């Protein structure tokens, strides 16, 4: 008796939800961005230096200033700084930054003789690098932090565990060091089919990465992640913000937000622009970036189907046999 009215109430709600989902689907998660009006959030600037160790095939060193919401940890600063993603092993050991080394995930504790390959973690303190005693996740991001990462490549030419190359100078890496509070208004969704640079160019038309500081200091390099329109790059680690130290606030920056994770912002890539000293673009920035290791879903589906078939066959065979307990 009471079922009918309840079903009657549910049906229109379901229709609305379904229609909403259908409308949003083509746009991808970026479409949810306008629904998230981010209030003013205090942000902290952290300097991150990633030294790939200089082995064969190693990318060039990355030196960046990233801004993370206060309260997040240095691990998130790293994931913002990395252009692709950071892979951790199941044990929590960091295996791969930006896809280097290529076999990092499958061989996370690789060794050569008595020495091991590993990513080392350093803190900058008073102008020198100090080996960190704890993991980045246990360190809250504080203004003035300089985080260093170096990939240790054991070999006869390397002394054991050297520090990252660039000096830990916070002032030069993050000249605008104090926390810059930036209000973010509702962001228009990226237009499909538009060139990634369409909305981007508005922000970075001026000299993007040269800081307002003196030219003597090596300008921070900005290597940013492009947003391909409609690409649901949901596998990325949460993004943060990289602000070029422009005087004006970045306007119209597109936000690619991913569910959960601290929200940060990153200004979109700008093809040939934004090259600073010592920066090397990692391949074609407009190319569709796939995180390493995510092949097609087909083998996994096949194996899952195989597992299911075996289990069902086993259950059927089990039942066939008469029991004598």
């Amino acid at each position, binding site marked *: 008796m009471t079922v009918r009215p309840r079903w009657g109430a549910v049906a229109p709600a379901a229709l609305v939800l379904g229609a909403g989902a259908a409308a949003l689907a083509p746009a991808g998660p970026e479409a949810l961005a306008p629904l998230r009006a981010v209030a003013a959030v205090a942000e902290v600037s952290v300097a991150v230096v990633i030294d790939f160790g200089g082995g064969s095939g190693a990318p060039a060193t990355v030196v960046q200033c990233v801004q993370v919401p206060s309260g997040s940890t240095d691990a998130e600063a790293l994931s913002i700084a990395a252009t692709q993603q950071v892979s951790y092993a199941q044990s929590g050991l960091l295996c791969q930054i930006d896809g280097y080394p290529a076999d990092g995930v499958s061989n996370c504790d690789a060794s050569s003789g008595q020495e091991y390959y590993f990513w080392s973690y350093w803190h900058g303190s008073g102008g020198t690098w100090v080996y960190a005693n704890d993991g980045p996740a246990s360190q809250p991001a504080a203004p003035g932090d300089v985080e260093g990462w170096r990939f240790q490549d054991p070999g006869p030419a390397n002394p054991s565990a050297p520090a990252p190359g660039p000096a830990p100078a916070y002032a030069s890496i993050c000249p605008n060091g104090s926390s810059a509070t930036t209000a973010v208004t509702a962001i228009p969704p990226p237009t499909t089919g538009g060139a990634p640079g369409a909305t981007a160019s508005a922000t970075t038309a001026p000299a993007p990465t040269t800081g307002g500081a003196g030219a003597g200091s090596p300008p921070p390099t900005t290597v940013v992640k492009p947003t391909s329109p409609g690409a649901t790059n949901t596998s990325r680690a949460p993004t943060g913000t990289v602000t070029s130290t422009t005087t004006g606030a970045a306007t119209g920056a597109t936000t690619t937000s991913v569910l959960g994770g601290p929200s940060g912002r990153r200004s979109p890539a700008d093809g040939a622009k934004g090259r600073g000293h010592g920066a090397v673009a990692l391949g074609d920035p407009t190319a569709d970036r796939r995180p390493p290791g995510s092949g097609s879903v087909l083998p996994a589906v096949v194996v899952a189907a195989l597992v299911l078939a075996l289990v069902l066959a086993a259950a059927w065979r089990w039942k066939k046999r008469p*029991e*004598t307990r």
Partner: protein
Amino acid sequence: MIRFSDVSFTYVDAPAATLAHVDLAIGDGELCLVVGPTGSGKSTLLRSINGLVPHFSGGHLAGEVAVAGRSTRDVAPRELADLVGFVGQDPAASFVTDTVEDELAYTMENLGVPPAAMRRRVEDTLDLLGLHELRDRPLLALSGGQQQRVAIGAVLTASPRVLVLDEPTSALDPAAAEEVLAALARLVHDVGLTVVVAEHRLERVVPFADSVVLVPGGGRPLVRGDPGTVMASSPVVPPIVELGRLAGWDPLPLSVRDARRLAEPLRQRLAPLEPGAPAAIGAPGAGRAAPVGAGDDVLATTEHLGVAYGEVTALDDVGLSVRRGEVVALMGRNGSGKSTLLGQLAGQRAPTSGRVRVLGEAPAALTARRLIAKVGLVPQDAGLLLYGESVEAECETADHDAGLPPGTTAATLQRVLPGMPGRRHPRDLSEGQRLALALAVVLAPAPPLLLLDEPTRGLDYPAKERLVTVLGELAGSGHAVVVATHDVELVARVAGRAIVLADGEVVADGAAREVVCHSPVFAPQVAKVLAPEPWLTVDEVRRALAGAPA
């Protein structure tokens, strides 16, 4: 073959000697039956042949026991394993491996017999005992008779010259007991083994025995002789012998066949008489007198009762009813569902299909306290009910559990079995005493319905007599009693109604006399001797003869 020379044995901490100055000689190829009341020392006598007494049990042995010239004094039982084979009451408790063939080979492995000889002997033993279809079966899946035969085979493969069996058929239904005894007889006649058997249910073994040893207990001397002589004066006798004494037959017949030849005059005398004349309330047989449908309460009913454990059906469409004042016997071979039916009446689990009602309620749904006020079940292993430190403690706990005034259980116990030592640990009691204690505990809250599962296993004749009396009194005072038993003699003495189960179904349900008399498996000895006249017990015959005009 076996010689006891002035053997005396005392257990550690025992007040008196169990065996005193025993002189005995058992010849080669004899089947010797050892009889005597419980606790008289039969088991001790048997185990001393093997060396288990004193090497395994402890105690002080004086004198010498020699088997085929080898003395058991200095040699452990394991050294005699190739000479003497010992089979106990519970075959399942002596199995070491998991299949029949491995069990048969186990003794030979211990003795270091070469593999080729082992193979040959296993095949021979399988043939001898009729086990060759069972050779790969797991031991737990065999029936009781098969297990007992496997246990016999397991000691037989060592080619011993003497076989000692301590109550081999007490756990078996009549058909299985016949199998085992036939196998024993074949061993004696074909293979020439010397077999020494102790049994309570003499009627099964006496026909096969070459000699009988009576152990009277209490330190009195043994009596040995051929069966006829010993049975003539023994206090424990099977019904045939009792009948023969009553009718004055000479020589005393020991088997049904012999008795039938002598029974013709008695049959003619009994032809005009009616068995089962109503007896006084409280006397044995009172239960039988209660006519069916006398308008008394129906205490328990089952309708279309079905019980299944997984894929195995234990009970199938069983319908019966039990009235006040009835003593109902549940019979059937092992595995036919007797215990399951009693468990259903006692509310141990809910039925898979159908209904059970005891005094109008489903017993499985009752709380324990309300249950024991309605129905009492004495399980097969009465010791499971007992966990007190002493008999007195047990009675007190029973009073407390049932919410009875203190002393009730002790009074019941006194009625059931007077003279029970109060301080003794229940595990140290004899079988009959333990059954009496369990019965008292269950009877204390006076449940109208009483269930007993195989109560006579291990009971000697005097204890059985007491049980029969108690059951008769209970029936007379308005209880209903359901007894699941193999013991046809008990059924003949006490049951008014008999239900036969086979494969979980009711095969026969009616007055005990009709069900039991003409069945080749379940007929008591008196019925077999006096067939076609429907007489069940010697008491009936005695009463009829006494009441008839001379």
